[in-house]
Every structure is written in C-alpha cells, then in structure tokens.
C-alpha cells in the first residue's frame, strides 16, 4: 500500500519514487502546486477506493500526513 502511495506522489510531483520520503511536503517540493495536489487527491481516491471529505483534503500537506490519513481510514495496512 505504501508503495502505491509513493508512486502516486512521484507521478504527481514529477520526481523519482526514491525521492519520496515521509518528509516530502509542500514546503520542500518544487512541483507541489494546485495541479499536483488535485492529481494526488484524485489518484488516492481512485487507487484506494475511498471518498475524501474536506477535512481529509486539508491533510495533503506531506507524504506522512497522507499516509497517516490512509492508515486511519484503514486503506494503508503496513
């Protein structure tokens, strides 16, 4: 599951999967813009089969925050 999320982040942020870490955030990633955020949200909803509410969207600030969110929702079981 974590690998799937890493791929989503790498694709949206136009970086290699190796570059995606828990610390990857909007503060330290060049291509983290509106479009990247939309791509990540849409891909997470599609790949993990969940519907995110507004409070969930506000957690798209870092890889760790999104991973924790998915764990909380039972979508990431690692």
């Amino acid at each position, binding site marked *: 599951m974590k690998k799937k999320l890493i791929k989503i982040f790498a694709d949206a942020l136009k970086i290699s999967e190796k570059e995606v870490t828990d610390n990857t955030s*909007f503060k330290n990633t060049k291509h983290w*813009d*509106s479009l990247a*955020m*939309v791509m990540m*949200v849409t891909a997470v909803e599609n790949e993990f089969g969940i519907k995110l509410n507004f*409070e969930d969207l506000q957690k798209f600030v870092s890889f760790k925050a999104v991973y924790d969110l998915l764990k909380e929702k039972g979508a990431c079981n690692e």
Partner: protein
Amino acid sequence: MSDNKIKDEVNKYVYPSEFAYARGEHVYFRYLTEEDAKGEWHLWFNSPEVTQYMGARRWFNTIDNQLEYLQYVKTTKDRLTLAIIDIKTNKHIGVCSLGSIDYINRHAEESCVIGDKKFQNGLYALESIAMITEIGFSRLNLHKIYATGAESNQNGLMLTKLLGYKESGRFKEHSFIKGKYEDSIILEILQVDWFKSPKRPKLMQLNYDE
C-alpha cells in the same frame, strides 16, 4: 510549541480582530484595507505569472488603481471581495471574491487569487475557494455559484472541480492568451448539491449569526 498552544496564539490574534469575516484551518478572511492596497496586493496584478489568465494583465497596476478598486469593493453590494490571510504568519496572501452577485436569480461568480508565490501549492487556494463557496451559499443564500477559467488554466479549473463544481459549458475562443484564442470553461455548483457535499468545509466564523 504544541498544536494547541499555537491555536491559542492564533485565536488570541484572530478573534479580537473586528475585520475577521470567516476562518478556516489554514486561512482566514477579512475585509481589505488601505494597507493591503499599498502593500503587496497591487503588485500581484503586475506579475505575469499571477495574471497570465486575467484580463487585468494588459495594464500596469498602481497603488492608486488599487485604492480606487478598494473603494469600489468597500461600497458595492455587487461583489464580496475578501483578503485571504495565512493564519500562521498573519500574512495577506491573496484575495477571494464572489462577483456579479445577482440577488434576483441568486447566483454569483467565484474567483480566487493566491498572489504570494510561497502559498501557491493548492492548499490555500482550495480552502479559500471552499470558504467563499460556503459563504455564498450559507450567508448570502445563493442558489448557484459559478466560475470561469481559460482552458489552459488547469490548476485553477481542476482545484475548483475537486470541490464538486461541474463543467456545464464553455465560451468559445473567449480569452486571448499567449497569442491565441482559448475557450473558457464554465464550472458551477448548486446550493443543494453543496450542502450535501463531503467537500463542504466546517467553517469557523466571526460575526456570523447562524
């Protein structure tokens, strides 16, 4: 500093402000001031990056222009224009508005500009669009809110769609951008759909009776 302490600090600063209009998680809205017009606000509209999809980009924007516009937005009931303030830094980072407010047919046009580059990561625009949409439906009792954007402005269009706005049409060859005409996409959302949307924010408000 713990999250709660930070929140207390923010609340101490934000809540006493008579200008504060509505508050979200990352940003709050307040009325625009002369200090804003003399500050970065007028400069954003001279930035090619910020104005690339706007008609305003053809003219140089001065402090006087901005002060004149401020007088207009302070007195008109045709539009509601609010400053977007980052809660953590208390910095003015953009403006959000409901324009062309039609009180008979109950619709208005949403627009949002994040002028400060450091905050152009989707998070602040998303919350601002959600907040102004909520204000339009809950406070102004609008029936419908719409937004338009040049087809190449995918960042703005996709972000708005993420909140549940649906594409309902397009103005053919409506905008002249980078030497060619582009269609403008029309996005809209009805009050009834917004009220049942999971993308509706919980808005903490000031001076808000409901």
